[in-house]
Each structure stands twice: as C-alpha cells, then as structure tokens.
C-alpha cells in the first residue's frame, strides 16, 4: 500500500526564495513584517473602483461587502525587473507576471545554474484571481455583444447565448439561439461567418479601444493573460531552456502542492532545478463571490483563532522557492535554506459539502506527512498554520492540530492577520515564513489573537505564541517545522521542512522497482450521447461524427451529482460533465476504486475560463459598464446585460464552488468519498499531457494507488475566441476520464489492464499554444492528449 511505501523526500533542498506580499518586497522585509506585526490592508485604487462592486448590504445583488484587501501597490521590483519595466518590456499592468518575475529573480540570485541543466516551473495559480484577465473578458464580451446588437446581425438576434450550429448537421446560425450560452460553430467555414461577424461588427474595434482605455490596458493579445502564458512570460530568459511549465490549481493550497510536485520531478530525474511557488491576485468578482459565502471579514480586520474572527481578507501576492536535490545543491555550494522531508496530501471526500473545511481530512494529510518523513508528531517543533480567519476554517484547523499534536502540545502560528490571505500563493508564503524562522532561529509571534474562540484547544493542546520565541535545537535533533495549506474543495496539504545538519549523510533516493502505470478503465462523455462502440470507432478513425457542442447542458440526474437543484444551476457545465462521466464509468465497472478509496486521487485538465464564470463576471461588472455608454451603445448594452442576467443566476454562496476550476476534480472526491489528492493542472493546450504525467508521477512515487485523469473541454463563451487562440469552428466539447493505477495494484484487485502508459518524453516547453492533434482539425483543447492516447489504443486494437 502507498501508506507503507510513503516516499522519502530527504534529498530535496531549498536553495533560493523570493517573495512579494503587501508590505514586503523581499524575504528580509517579510521577516521584519512578521516581527512587527502591522496589518497591511487598504482600500483598492486604480481600476478597481469599489463603488461599482461594493455594498454594505450583504444581500445586495452581485455586490460584496468588503472594502479592504491586501495590495502590492508598494512593491519595489528587483533591480533587473525595474530596468525591464523602464525599457517597456513589462508594465505595472502585467501584475501577476511582474510579481512572479520579481520573486524568481530574487530566488535565483543564490542559485548556480550549469550548462545543460533542465528546469521545471510549477506555479500555483488560476485565471480566477487575475483582475486584468477579468477586465479583458469583460472587454471582449461586451465589445462583441454590443457591436453585434448595433449591427443587428445574427449574433444580436441570438443574444448572449448563441449556439451557432453543430457539426454533422448543417449549421443553423442564430435560430438555435436560446439553446445555450456558448458559441460553437459547426464547421470552419460557418465559424468564419459566425465569428467574423462576431468579432466584428464595425463597432467592435471602437468599443474595445474605449474599454481598454477605461481599464487602462495596452491591447495585449488576450490569450497571453491565461495563467500558463503569464508564467511563461514571467520566467522568460531566467530559467534553463526547455523548462516545462505547469500551473497547479488546488485553490488556496496550490503553491504547497506546486512545491511538492516540483520535488517529485527532481526525484524522478526529470530536471535539475525546480522553480516552484504561486501567484494570486485580488479581484472585485472574487471578493463578491467569497462575500456571498459569508467568509470575508465584515469588520475589515483579519483575526485568526480569535473570538472576534469574522472572516478572511485576500491579498495580492507571489512567492517562489528554488529546489534542487541536496547532492546537487552541495556540489554547487548553493545555500541550503532547508530540506523538504515529507509531504502529505488528502481530500476530504464525502461527508460535508464540497467547500466545508473538514478536520478529518486535514488530520489525514498531517499524519501522511509525518509518515512520509519517518517522524512522529513530537519531532515536529511547530506548525505554520493555514489560519485564514474564517470561523469554520479555523475551528477545523485547530481540531486537526489538536488531533495530531504530541502529548506536549502543538505550537502553531499564522501570518494572515498581518499580510492577508495570499490565496493561490499561500503555501509558498508559508514555506518562506518557515524557512525564515529556521534561518533566524526564532518563531515570530502569532498576530490577531487576543481571546481564543470558546472551547478551542488553545491553551490545552495547542499553543499559539503571543510573543516571539527563540527556536533552538532540542537534544541535538535537527529543527523541524510543518507547513499546512488547505484549499477550497477539501484539498489539504502538509509539508515538513527540516534544517540541514551538515554532517548528516544524505540518504540515497529509495530505489523504485519497475511497476508500470497502466490504464484499467475509461469513459467518454460527448454531445449526442454516442454509444461506446461509436466512440471507439471515432477514436480509431479520427473522424468525429458527433455534434461538437452539447448546446444547453442539461443537469445530469440527482443520483449522479447529488446536488440540490439550486446548486446545480450555479455549477459550471465542466463540473456537471465530470460528475456524469464518473457515473458512466461506475455504470460500466462499478466503483473500481472502492478497495483503494483512501489513496485514489483526481488529476484534472481544463484550460480557459468556465462559461458560467464568464456569465457571473458580467453580472458583477454590470454596474461598472453601465456608466460608460450613451445612446445606442447604452441601449445595446442594456439588452445584452438583460440576456446575461437571464442566463446566469445571481451571485450566491453556490457561485464560487460552481465556477472554481479545481472543484471539478474535488466534486468526484466528494461524490465518491476519495481521500487521495485532487488537483487541476493547466499548461494551456498541453494540459492533458501534463495531467497524465502528473498522475503517473504520483502513482510511481506511491502517493496514489489510483489516479483518475479527468480531461474536459467546454466551448469558448461567445465573443472570447481570441482568448484561447483556437478557431471556434475546430473546438469540440467533451469530457474524458481515465482510471490509472500501477500494474501490481491492478493485478492485486483483478482489474483488466487495457494498456501500459509510459512516462515521458516530457512535453517540450513549447508555448502551450494550439497545435493540430489529428488530421481532422477537431480539437478538444486541454483534453487532446488524453484523446490521442485513447485513439492510439483503439487504432492499435483494430
């Protein structure tokens, strides 16, 4: 079992770190902030016009009640980046790319690179927290829709919801309009019409320039704002050639999972240097949707573990650590800031709703980290807690800390009361907090706690330092610290970091016996519900005869999704497709994973914005847009907003779980009670390949016994063709699920092996842009690699 062969990570060294958080532009500034404890929250400035998005009334439609967040307006860019900005290579408007590049420059200063080194870059992130991406989506959609209405063309008649035909039949432009929110043209020629008209009533260009002016953007090609492209821009010229790029999304634990994934690539020999971390922004829509959950601080003050804690506050932030094997770090004479000695991951599984924090799941990941490192609880000196300031989240975390504490109690501290919640970069910020404490030999005081929550374990088995404490080595044991990071959707991670004791011999990596990764089951969910035989035929011939779009996506039956109808209406089709697909697999094979539920995980691939997220974004920006137009433009806008509102439910507590991409994977864990890690990977068009690679890596290292690879493609919402760079006429909707395991596990449980899945060769860096996956020109985008794999299987078997 994976539990017994838990992987040893004693060989991974952190050799560099860089950080950008509100109030600190470097690790030393962050340390100063941790020791002074001054909170860094402010009202937004610039393009984030609070009046358009804020209301004191928590029930105000599509508005949020929080006024303050943490902002990086005071960032002092690394000197080289400052010069690049002066030269116009980057602008301050490139926010996430600038923050990440700043961190990478800082983190690389102490790192030796040799000729021929291979790198991997694994960054926690999402398009959902990029203000600029949101503004560009709003700009593109509004320009498209308003100009369409002004021109009185098909797209105007069709409204925001044109499904302009289906493949396999003659395309019916416009008349299908009420059917759904997505423009999917039938054939390339049709799409040229539909999209050409689309893209561009004569007014589109004028409207676009005007909106770009309003938001203060240069007209960057929109596709460059997708998360994997942002990372590629940030690392350009700073990393070895051929460096692979993976964006990891497990919500607020993303950066910790990114660090673990980078470590695994190093241990597998995939590369010599891993650049890992996270980036996260603050957006009006995210603040609105999070407020509807009631999880943002009404007082605008972040307290953690405190009686008065009433929610969290998000911050703009980025953080990067550079990793090498210890052997290589020592040979290069790089500073060893700490060793990564064990990681534990878990999913909450069944039990509560998909976004409720769960102490059982959190305890499980902490125990798994201890096991992976070969330590017991008493050998861990303290924990950098996730500690976000939400009542439910903090209570769950304290319960998990208490449950996993040694008899002497558990010391823990969080920094979020000072810098806010760094979202998708939180795990890396916490790792740097831990590394700084190791370096300075002190545990900084926890801020934001005066009176603990009643009945909390604080004061009994959990000890939260109110003063800075010295951190000295006990009994000549190397000092060890745990870092917790928990994400929306029940994606829990815990990483153990130990100081490097120079005389300790480095442990060689555990030899891995050849136990190939194999495919034991698969299912495909395609428009028109083709039979298994038809799907196999299409895979084998490469000719896709089913429709390219689902049109309006009907919610699957209750038993498949187990969601109240209200929740289902606010849940993006990508998630509903995933749940239906899993039900298809179960109908054919039963719950294959039942003997290995605890070590079954889900690795998902999806790229581009979720359609429902776009609809919700338009609702949230309605007030901002309404003030900008006059005359015929204003009338066209009003008509468009009316349609958009009719199509997408108002922002509610179901919105965020319904549109967050990583929840697609978490839904399966929640529905089928799986307790291995769930993760979404986004490397643009090669996401499917990355998901297969990541799944194979977690299987090979024993962290998972079964990996469900979920690859989903949904159509581009109307007007957003420029966002993906793919021609709308070639894009096909579909969802694919593969059950992968190790050969030995398949034999043990009597699962039929369909094929062996060799690891690598790894996708070359490339640009993540569209390439033609097969001769028909049909593309399932993020799912293409999975489709290619299945196609090869069926071509061979014919």
């Amino acid at each position, binding site marked *: 079992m994976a539990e017994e062969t838990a992987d040893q990570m004693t060989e991974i060294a952190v050799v560099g770190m860089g950080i950008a958080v509100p109030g600190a532009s470097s690790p030393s500034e962050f340390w100063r902030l941790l020791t002074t404890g001054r909170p860094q929250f402010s009202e937004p400035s610039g393009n984030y016009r609070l009046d358009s998005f804020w209301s004191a009334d928590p029930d105000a439609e599509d508005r949020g009640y929080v006024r303050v967040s943490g902002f990086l307006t005071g960032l002092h860019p690394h000197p080289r980046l400052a010069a690049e900005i002066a030269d116009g290579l980057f602008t301050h408007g490139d926010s996430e790319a600038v923050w990440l590049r700043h961190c990478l420059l800082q983190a690389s200063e102490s790192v030796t690179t040799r000729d021929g080194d291979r790198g991997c870059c694994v960054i926690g992130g999402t398009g959902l927290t990029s203000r600029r991406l949101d503004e560009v989506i709003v700009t593109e959609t509004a320009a498209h829709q308003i100009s369409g209405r002004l021109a009185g063309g098909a797209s105007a008649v069709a409204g925001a919801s044109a499904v302009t035909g289906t493949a396999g039949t003659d395309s019916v432009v416009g008349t299908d309009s009420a059917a759904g929110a997505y423009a999917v043209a039938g054939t390339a020629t049709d799409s040229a019409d539909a999209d050409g008209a689309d893209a561009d009533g004569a007014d589109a260009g004028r409207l676009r320039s005007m909106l770009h002016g309003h938001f203060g953007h240069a007209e960057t090609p929109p596709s460059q704002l997708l998360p994997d492209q942002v990372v590629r821009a940030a690392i350009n010229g700073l990393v070895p050639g051929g460096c692979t790029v993976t964006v990891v999304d497990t919500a607020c634990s993303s950066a910790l999972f990114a660090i673990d994934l980078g470590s695994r690539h190093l241990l597998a020999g995939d590369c010599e240097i891993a650049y890992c971390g996270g980036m996260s922004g603050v957006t009006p829509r995210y603040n609105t949707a999070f407020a509807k959950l*009631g999880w943002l601080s009404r007082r605008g003050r972040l307290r953690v573990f405190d009686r008065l804690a009433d929610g969290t506050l998000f911050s703009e932030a980025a953080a990067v650590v550079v990793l090498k094997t210890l052997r290589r770090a020592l040979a290069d004479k790089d500073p060893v800031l700490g060793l990564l000695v064990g990681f534990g991951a878990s999913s909450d599984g*069944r*039990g*509560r*709703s*998909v*976004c*409720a924090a769960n102490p059982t799941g959190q305890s499980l990941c902490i125990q798994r980290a201890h096991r992976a490192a070969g330590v017991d609880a008493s050998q861990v000196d303290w924990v950098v807690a996730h500690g976000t300031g939400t009542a*439910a989240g903090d209570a769950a975390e304290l319960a998990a800390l208490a449950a996993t504490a040694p008899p002497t109690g558990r010391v823990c501290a969080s920094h979020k009361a000072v810098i806010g919640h760094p979202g998708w970069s939180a795990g890396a910020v916490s790792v740097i907090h831990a590394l700084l404490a190791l370096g300075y030999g002190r545990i900084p005081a926890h801020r934001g706690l005066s009176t603990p929550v009643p009945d909390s374990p604080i004061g009994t088995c959990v000890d939260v330092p109110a003063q800075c404490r010295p951190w000295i080595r006990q009994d000549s044991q190397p000092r060890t610290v745990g870092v917790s990071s928990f994400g929306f959707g029940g994606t829990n991670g815990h990483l153990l970091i130990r100081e490097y004791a120079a005389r300790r011999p480095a442990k060689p990596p555990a030899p891995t016996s050849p136990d190939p990764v194999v495919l034991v089951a698969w299912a495909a969910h395609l428009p028109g519900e083709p039979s298994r035989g038809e799907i196999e035929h299409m895979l084998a011939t490469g000719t896709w005869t089913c429709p390219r779009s689902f049109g309006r996506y009907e919610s699957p039956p*209750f*038993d498949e*999704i*187990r*969601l*109240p*109808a*209200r*929740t289902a209406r606010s849940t993006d089709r990508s998630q509903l497709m995933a749940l239906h697909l899993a039900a298809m697999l179960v109908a054919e094979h039963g719950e294959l994973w039942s003997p290995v539920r605890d070590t079954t995980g889900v690795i998902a691939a999806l790229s581009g914005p979720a359609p429902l997220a776009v609809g919700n974004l338009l609702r949230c920006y309605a007030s901002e847009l309404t003030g900008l137009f006059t005359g015929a433009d204003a009338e066209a806008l009003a008509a468009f907003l009316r349609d958009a509102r009719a199509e997408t439910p108002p922002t509610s*507590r179901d919105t965020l779980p319904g549109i967050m991409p990583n929840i697609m994977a978490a839904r399966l864990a929640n529905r089928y009670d799986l307790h291995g890690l769930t993760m979404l990977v986004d490397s643009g068009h090669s996401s499917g390949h990355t998901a297969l690679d990541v799944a194979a890596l977690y299987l090979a290292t024993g962290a998972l016994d079964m990996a469900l690879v979920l690859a989903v493609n949904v159509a581009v919402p109307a007007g957003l063709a420029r966002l993906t760079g793919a021609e709308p006429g070639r894009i096909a909707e579909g969802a694919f699920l593969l059950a992968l395991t190790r050969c030995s596990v398949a034999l043990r449980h009597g699962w039929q092996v369909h094929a062996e899945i060799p690891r690598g060769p790894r996708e070359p860096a490339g640009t993540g842009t569209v390439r033609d996956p097969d001769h028909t020109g049909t593309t399932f985008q993020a799912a293409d690699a999975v489709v290619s794999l299945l196609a090869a299987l069926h071509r061979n078997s014919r």
Partner: protein
Amino acid sequence: MTTPAPVPTTPELLEELRRICAEAVEIPIDKITAEADLAADLGVDSLTMDEFLVLVLQHYGMSAKVNSIQTTSYPTIGALADLVQRLNGERNGGGNSGPDD
C-alpha cells in the same frame, strides 16, 4: 404571523419534513429518506441546513429554540423529527414526546 402547525404523529411528521425539505432545498422528494444524511448523501451545505432548520422550527412555532440548536447534531430527517417531537414534548410540559412510538 401564521399560526404554527401542530406537530403530527411520527409517520406524518416525517412526511411533512420531507415535503418541506424537498421544496426548500430543491431535492427530489424520493431521495429524502428518514435516514439519508442531508450533507453527505444529498449535498446540502451547512448554511442551507441552518436555513432549513429555521424553517422547520418556524413551521411548528418553535423559533425561540433556534439559538440553542446545533444543526450538525441533526443530520437526517429522522433526527430532525425526533428533535421536533422532543421540543413539542417540552413545550407541552411533559418529558414525553409524540403520542405514538
């Protein structure tokens, strides 16, 4: 204020609670058995659970009790029916709950 509904016998109470739940939470009524765990089996989030509990207590004129009750202690319709009967019994001055069972 509408007049609170009387608390019926156990089988009818269960039916009534299932009906209220199906309508308020938008779940097919045949899935709402007395034993189904509303959160784990039916995907009901904790805030919706709170709202449903408030609705039920209002229905039977027991709103005054709302702050003393932990929703998580009543994960099923069956458990909720027991709660309503216990509160009804306390209200009627006896320790005994429903007339049946």
